[in-house]
């Protein structure tokens, strides 16, 4: 009788433990839209990269340098991305951000892009190879590259303020566009993002 009472007393505990263990061991994976923000932390994420790129390029193209260039040269301006340095406290995939920038500019149709140094060298190697191996009709000439009119560069900075489980992270992206003939800065853009992360000290 005593044993039965003890077992009865233990049953809810055993059930609770079993449920807890079952709950802990489950893994769930689901497909989500690439444009949907899934923020698991205050780190810089894909959505930040996309939003900042779009906002900055819209701002850049709203400045007078585009029309000035069209009126003067009669062609769309060609831009080269020099470098965007990560000076923040997070490891940011700068290449992904640069690709977002390029896509935004190309989508606008108001400017062209010139490949960067590494890609240009690869293409030149390919043209050299064509000179040896491709037919005359399909060969591409050397010395016909389009030079860039403007150079885009900038930095990603961040500041962090932390107290207990709360952390405020402030990201600031600064980009500038330089006229490669005159060294004139024709555009300077800035975009800021602030994130608040709250963590509790105790959990179940």
């Amino acid at each position, binding site marked *: 009788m*005593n*044993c039965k009472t*003890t077992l009865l007393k233990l049953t809810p505990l055993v059930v609770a433990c079993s449920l*807890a263990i079952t709950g802990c061991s489950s893994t769930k994976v689901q497909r989500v839209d690439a444009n949907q923000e899934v923020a698991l932390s205050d780190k810089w994420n894909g959505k930040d990269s996309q939003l900042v790129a779009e906002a900055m390029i819209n701002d850049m193209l709203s400045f007078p340098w585009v029309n000035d260039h069209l009126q003067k040269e009669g062609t769309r301006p060609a831009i080269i991305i020099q*470098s965007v*340095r*990560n*000076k*923040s*406290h*997070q*490891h940011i995939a700068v290449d992904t951000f640069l690709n977002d920038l390029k896509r935004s500019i190309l989508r606008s149709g108001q400017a062209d892009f010139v490949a960067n140094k590494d890609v240009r060298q690869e293409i030149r190697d390919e043209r050299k190879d064509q000179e040896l191996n491709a037919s005359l009709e399909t060969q591409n000439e050397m010395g016909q590259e389009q030079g860039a009119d403007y150079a885009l560069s900038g930095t990603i900075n*961040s500041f*962090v303020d*932390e*107290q207990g*489980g709360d952390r405020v992270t402030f990201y600031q992206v600064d980009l500038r566009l330089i006229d490669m003939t005159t060294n004139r800065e024709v555009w300077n853009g800035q975009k800021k993002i602030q994130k608040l992360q709250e*963590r*509790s*000290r*105790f*959990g*179940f």
Partner: protein
Amino acid sequence: MLSLFNTLHYRAWLTVALIVVLTGCNTTPANKNAILLAQQGQFEQAKTAIETSYPASGKNKLLRHLELGTLYHLEQRYQLSNENLDKAKAIIEEQYTISVSEQALALLSGPTYTTFSGKEFHRPLINVFKALNYNALANQYPAQRQYYLDAALVEMRQLDTYLSTLTDETGGYDGKPSGDGLTDRVMRILQPLLAPNDLLKNIDYKDDAFAHYISGILYESSNELDAARIQYQRAAEAFEQGFADQYDLGTHATKQAYTDLARVMQKAGGYRNELNELEEKWGDSINEARQAGPRLTVVQNAGIGPQRKEFNLLLRADHSAKALVVTPILWGTSAERKAQMWWFQMLYADTSLFDMMQNYATGDLGDVAMGALTKRLPLGDTLWQSAKTAGLIDALEHGSRIAVTYLEPFEQKIDKSELWIEGKKVAELDNYHSVSLLTLQSALKNANREMQIALTREVVKAMTAHKAIQSTGLQAFDGFAKLATSVVNAVTAGADLRQWQSLPAQIKLTQVPVTLGTVNITLKTKLRSGKVIEQSDTLEINKNMTLWHTRTFIESAQSAAPTTLLTME
């Protein structure tokens, strides 16, 4: 008579059980084995040992990534090292939220049932190791040098955020004492034994001068002079205001940090007044190292940090004195037993006059002489009666095993380390950090709390078992049941020996002027035994600051020829 026989019989069984358990306790942890394998160059076996012993999803997942991070670092596979250290950092962040259920389970079972969350000094060391990895990648791939140096600086910014929070909490070295009651108590206990050595005056980990210094070096490498100046200044002040004393580093690190501060101030310009103040304080010697031109900083991570080991105590009730008595069970090799005795005396034993008087007052004159080997907690009539009513005294009839940790003693094996460039000796390396002392102080700080928790846990376990015996009607087997409970508790009691084992014992550093271009360097480590370890490399010197690091294993040299050539960056 029969009762006395039974008691003796049960105690004999308990002793046998304890011996079996203690024999099992002497096994070397997997991560210690792994780093011992690594120092012999057997990296694959070392990594397999870690991966087998610490699963990726278990409560020891942090250890897995910390140890793999170091092993890949030693193997010069820096990307993989950083991937593991990044995971370790994320796990430490997750552990900010303490799981109440896990803590409750730990209280009933033992500390090893909790998820290992590391120590407060692990996070800065992760940042430093990751930064050294990125720096090494920058040296390996000159085309991507800036990218990797930027990545190293990301680590230094994270480090700065962490240390700023830490100094806010602790007051840092220039703030007021933290007023931590536990630290003060540990200090008071240690005072009679270690009073001549001021080392333990303050054992809190409150800032990291070495980490700030490395940060300054990396900022200077990237020519970010303003950030370098701030970090050198923080390093210099922390070294000067207590870090150098706390980790027994001497004065050279402080002076070097001030010299570097003066150099970047001069490079940046606009700090005339500050430079004058530094010259007044340090004299002409600070000017010599301020010359413009490329510089080389060599960081030597030496040896293996001390191992945490288990130390067992027996808790029993003394009916005649109405006291709880804790007695150490010295076990293991002669050196281990000595270390256990030393640790117990340092922290727990009744070594003060006050405690000896308490022994005397409880009427146990025999233990006055043995005061150094017991810890007595007199309960008095009222508390003793309460303890009896609660079943505590009954539960401790056969005693209860308490397992706590102690740190194996470490000895200084390096006599000196010298930097040779192109066949000429140019400098000796100085001590910039002692991870051994850092680990020891952390263990000392936690020791009393650990003992308190272990004591509570074992008492709760014993009392719960005792009550379960009563409620299930097994009183007929009371004696056997109590013995079984004591044996089970003895087996399940275990100290938390988990730690990042592959860390170096100490970190040495020197900085010298060099010429641009390629240089051949050799690091000669002269051991007190007379043996010499040589490590050589060829470096490409940059225009600002070049940072080179290496790990020197001391033990491997002992079994090797007197002069060993190793090239491990």
